[in-house]
Each structure stands twice: as structure tokens, then as C-alpha cells.
């Protein structure tokens, strides 16, 4: 599925895989630029020996400014509407741009640029422009950061025609999907999960692309399909290990893209397992989970032995207090219980 060759592979972190993809694409293509808040940090103080003070709020962009300079690695004022819009404008006029939105919750500030410009320009202009623009942003609850820094709003973006979106779940997919997103000629929203940055995994040193819009199976099984999105993929695999002890052999599909959605991959799996649970950290209404369940109900109805089911966050903002936040995020226990209930109905 990838274009990787026989290059050296080593273990690196999710955050390092992101960094490497950006670095390699900026090396390969001099029209690639990146902008955002604190992506280097301490901006404008080179004469004091201050360069790259932060290397990004989560250190995903560390080292870029030393390598590519402050004309291609652009720290911005706290002006998301302006710099996200400018990244879209630059992308439509000959640059290949990456903008970083610190948390997806902040998209409210710049949503118009994504909704009404990035997503629609090509269509409205009759195909005259391409918008090779990647928005890097962050999702994920569980860090005591309350409702304006913790949401997982990827479903909103999948609802908007004209935008693509990816949800990498490990270092390998982080690099391959980001490389593909940057090279893609359409606007792509790239969702990093805060809970995955320190995770390590094998990643080829050479650049490689994983195709946008393709899911992957991370655990093969015969009895039920668990679809995971971003970090929820690993909640699914942990649940699958427990379920195996009860004799339930779960297949786990890692969705990887929220637009385009790889319906065929999920449906092919469900046709073999006859059951489906989608595990989604986003809120439930008009969600990825509901979309996938609807597609399976519509296209694989005759194969189903149980209702397509969802394990999601509740229809509430993310609460601050730890006991409530722990309840909010889907966990293994909830997935296991849901699967057990589906089997208990016979």
C-alpha cells in the first residue's frame, strides 16, 4: 500500500515522524513553507542567540527554522484567521503550504477560511485553482485541559465537501500520511492526537506516501469488526486482546482518513465478521461513527448479525474534572461491554 522501498527503518516517536515528513518535503520542494504559532518560538531574537525556543508547542517542528530559515518557517502572531487564510491564499498562488492550528478547538477563529475559501475555491472558480494546503492540528481529551483545548472535532471537517482529512495513529502512518497530505493538491486537515506524541514505532528513513482515503487492518479477526479512529485504534486492539480471552476474535480496522472515507475496506471486513462497532472520540451526532454505521447498514445489511454500533464520547463538551473526563473518553471497558452485549443478543 505504500511506495516505500527497501530503505533503513528505525524506531522513532510519532512527533519525530511528523517532524521528519515536514523536513523531507521542505527539502524536496522549495515551495513548501510552514507557518503557525510558536512553531519555532522566541521569534525575531536571532541576534540574541535565541532560535527555535519552543520548536513547536508539542515539539513537532523543532529544528526546521535552523534548516530552512525564517522565510520558510514562519512564526505568526496569534491571528489564526489571517495566517490560515494566508496559507490558503499562498497555496492557491504557487506555494505549497502548511499551517499549524495549535488545537482543533481554535478552528472557530479561522473556520471561515477553511469552510468558505479552502474547501470551495476550486469548485466555485470552475477548477481554475488548486489549493495544496495542509492544516496541522491537534485532537484528544484526557489532559485536564477542559472544553476549549480537548475536543476531537474531525467529524465537522469530513462534513465539508472540498476538504480532505487524515487521522494518523502511529509513527509510520504519521509520516506517510503527512507526506501524502503535503504533496496532495487539495486542502488536507491532518489531525495529530496529543496522546500519541511519545509513542514509538518503526519508520523508514526515506520519504514515502500512504494514500489518502485508505484504511488499514491492524488486527485480523473473524467475529466482529472494530473500527478505530486515531488513538481509539489502540483502545480497539486492547479490547480485542481481552475479547480473545472470551473466544471473541475481533478484527481491528484503523480508519486513517476521515475524508475520503474508505467505506470499502470497512464493508469488506464486516461482510466477513458480520458485526461492527465504531470507536470514536468525537461527539456522536453526525459523526464518523454514525456515518460508518449508516454506510454499513445501507451496503452490508444482509451480512449483519447484529446492529452496527457506536462507542463515542457523549453529546457534551469535554469536562475538566478528572472523573468526568475519564468517563468522557471511550475506553477498553466500554468497547468490551458493547461487544459483549452484541454477542449476548445471540
Amino acid at each position, binding site marked *: 500500500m505504500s511506495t516505500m522501498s527497501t530503505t533503513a527503518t528505525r524506531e522513532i516517536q510519532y512527533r519525530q515522524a511528523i517532524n521528519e515528513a515536514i523536513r523531507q518535503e521542505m527539502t524536496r520542494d522549495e515551495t513548501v513553507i510552514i507557518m503557525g*504559532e*510558536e512553531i519555532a*518560538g*522566541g*521569534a*525575531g*531574537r536571532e541576534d*540574541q542567540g*535565541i532560535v527555535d*525556543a*519552543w520548536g513547536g*508547542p508539542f515539539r513537532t517542528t523543532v529544528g526546521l527554522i535552523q534548516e530552512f530559515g525564517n522565510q520558510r518557517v514562519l*512564526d*505568526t*502572531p*496569534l*491571528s*489564526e*484567521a*489571517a495566517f490560515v487564510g494566508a496559507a490558503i491564499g499562498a497555496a492557491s498562488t504557487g506555494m505549497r503550504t502548511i499551517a499549524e492550528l495549535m488545537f482543533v*478547538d*481554535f478552528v*472557530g*477563529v479561522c473556520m471561515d477560511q477553511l469552510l468558505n475559501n479552502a474547501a470551495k475555491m476550486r469548485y466555485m472558480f470552475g477548477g481554475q485553482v488548486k489549493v495544496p494546503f495542509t492544516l496541522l492540528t491537534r485532537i484528544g481529551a484526557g*489532559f*485536564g*485541559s*477542559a*472544553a*476549549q*483545548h480537548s475536543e476531537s472535532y474531525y467529524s465537522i471537517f469530513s462534513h465539508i465537501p472540498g476538504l480532505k482529512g487524515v487521522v494518523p495513529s502511529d509513527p509510520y502512518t504519521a509520516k506517510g500520511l503527512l507526506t501524502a497530505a503535503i504533496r496532495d493538491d487539495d486542502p488536507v486537515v491532518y489531525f495529530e492526537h496529543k496522546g500519541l506524541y511519545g509513542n514509538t514505532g518503526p519508520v523508514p528513513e526515506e520519504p514515502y506516501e500512504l494514500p489518502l482515503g485508505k484504511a488499514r487492518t491492524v488486527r485480523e479477526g473473524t467475529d466482529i469488526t472494530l473500527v478505530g479512529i486515531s488513538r481509539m485504534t489502540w483502545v480497539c486492539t486492547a479490547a480485542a486482546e481481552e475479547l480473545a480471552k472470551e473466544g471473541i476474535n475481533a478484527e481491528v480496522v484503523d480508519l486513517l482518513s476521515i475524508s475520503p472515507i474508505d467505506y470499502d475496506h470497512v464493508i469488506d471486513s464486516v461482510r466477513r465478521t458480520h458485526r461492527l462497532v465504531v470507536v470514536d472520540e468525537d461527539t*456522536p451526532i453526525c459523526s464518523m461513527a*454514525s456515518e460508518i454505521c449508516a454506510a454499513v447498514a445501507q451496503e452490508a445489511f444482509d451480512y449483519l448479525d447484529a446492529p452496527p*454500533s*457506536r*462507542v*463515542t*464520547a*457523549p*453529546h*457534551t*463538551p469535554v*469536562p*475538566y*474534572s*478528572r*472523573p*468526568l473526563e475519564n*468517563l*468522557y473518553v471511550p475506553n477498553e*471497558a*466500554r468497547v468490551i*461491554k*458493547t461487544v459483549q*452485549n452484541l454477542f449476548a443478543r445471540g
Partner: protein
Amino acid sequence: MDLNRETLLRLYTTMSTIRNFEERGIPETGQRAMSASVHSSAGQEAVPTGICAHLTDDDYIGSTHRGHGHCIAKGVDPKTMMAELFGRSTGNNKGKGGSMHIADMSKGMLGTNGVVAASVPLAVGAGLTSKLKNLGRVAVAFFGDGGANQGVLHESMNLASVWKLPVIFCCENNGYAESTPVEYALSTANVSDRAAGYDMPGINVDGMDVFAVYDAAGQAVARARAGEGPSLLECRTYRFYGHTVFDNPLSYRTKEEEDHWRARDPLKLFREAVLPLGEITQEELDQIDQEAAQLMEDAIKFADESPLPNQEEIYDDVYVSYPTELLKRGTNMEI
């Protein structure tokens, strides 16, 4: 300075309470709630203190992510604030919001806010309420030098000016938007220079000097109360710590710079200005500091002894009215 003794003691008490809250509450929160999203305003005490001294509980303020000082200056109880930081059900927001969302509508405190400059239009709206209902109240919109570059601030200043609303736009310019120096991010020398574009007074004061803030705020509040419209008040200040507890500010600023501003600690400047006048003694100020420190021990004890929210409370207050069943339908939530 022609302030009476009572006002002087009140200003110092507010600053000392804020300082003690930050110095004690933030490390304790780190241990209890394991939250990274707590921002110390230590060093910036003179700004909310000097401004809110002109306000009553009926007036409004909108605040920022670095908002503990705004809350305390507006009269919010440090005990319930501490409980909120600890995620307890006795917190101002019942543990739902934490440091970045502390609100107390009974004190006109419209919330600290996790999105930069997002509370600014809320304060403008509160000013609109006051004008339409003829309440005689004013609203203060606090924002930082980072917030100065948000579009919503500019739209809000224009709107408040067009509608002649009783709003004070207060920029706490502490020199840094996270790690980004203000001179890199700001097109003008001062945030207050931008007032001209919105046809309102732009005032720039030393934000470490509570008396300078108090005097300037007095004029802006009086203008607002008189129905003459909004003002922009920029206070140059400094945060003594990093953006959050995880930030090492020496990665983007120098020790010399920190020492310069530490030497201009607003509590220290207060003592240097007031004690030579002989009306207030060092012992009195020391006593205020001790009482503020004890208040924090009491607040921590109160918060520690308070219950965490019940799990069912996750569904409370999403709406005024909505079927709870629909908040979890189809989600396979545990409760």
C-alpha cells in the same frame, strides 16, 4: 497619590491575595488535577487590581487564560476558585471548567477563557446589555498582547465605538504571546496606538505601578459610565513565570530581563511608594501578606475536603432544556 488609607489597604490586599493564590494554588493544582492548562499571573497583579478597584459586583469583566488575578480582583472567592482548579464540585463551575473557564456571574465575572481574545466580544455584549437596559454598568475586556492581534478584538473595538458602549478594552501587555515577543508580532510600537483607528482614547501606562493603572482606569471607567464610549488602556507588565508550568521562559528571554522586571514587582513598588508616607506601616502590609497566605491554606483545605463531581454530572448544563437520554443515546456510555 491622593488615595485614602482604606483604598490603599484594599489595593494591597487584592495584589497580595492574587500573588499568594498563584504561588500556592498552581503547584497544588498540578498535583491534584494533573492539568497543564494553568497559567500564573504572578507579576501582573497591579493591572486587575487597579482596574477592578473602580468596579462593583454589578459591573462586568471578560477575562483570559491567565485570569486568576481578574477573578480575585473582581471579588471571586479564592476558596471556590481553588476548588475549581482541583476539579471539585464546590468549584465556581462545579469542576466543569477549571482554571481557564472560571466564571462567577454573581460577581459580574464573565469567565476566564481558553481562546485568545474570545471573551472580548462578550464584554462588548455586556456593555450593550447595560446600555439597552440603562443599568449604568461598565464592562472591562481583558486581553493580552497576543490577543491584540486577533481579528475579533478589532471588530469588537469598532463595534463598541460605533455603538458608544461602556467598555474598557484593557490590554495586559506582558511582552510575550506564549514565547513570541511582542515586538515581533505587533505592527505598531504600542497596542494603545491602535485606538486611533477606532476613534477612542488610547492610554498607555506602567502596569507594574498599581497607582498608574488605578488613575488611568478611573478616567476610562468614568468616560464609560458617562456614556461617552469605550477606551483602550494598555498596561505594560510582565509575567514572572513561563506561559504554563511546563514552559521554561529562559528559552526565549534573558535572566537579566527577568531580574529587571522582578525588581519592579508591583507589591514591592507599592511598598516603596506607600511606606515613606507614614500612613501605613510595614507591619500592616506584612500582616496582609500573612492573612493572604493563610487564606490559601484554608482554600486548599476546603478544596481538598470537597467532593469530586458525581459521574452523572457529566450530562448537566449542556443545555437549559434537553432530554438527557439524547446526550448519550447510541454512545454506549457506561452511565
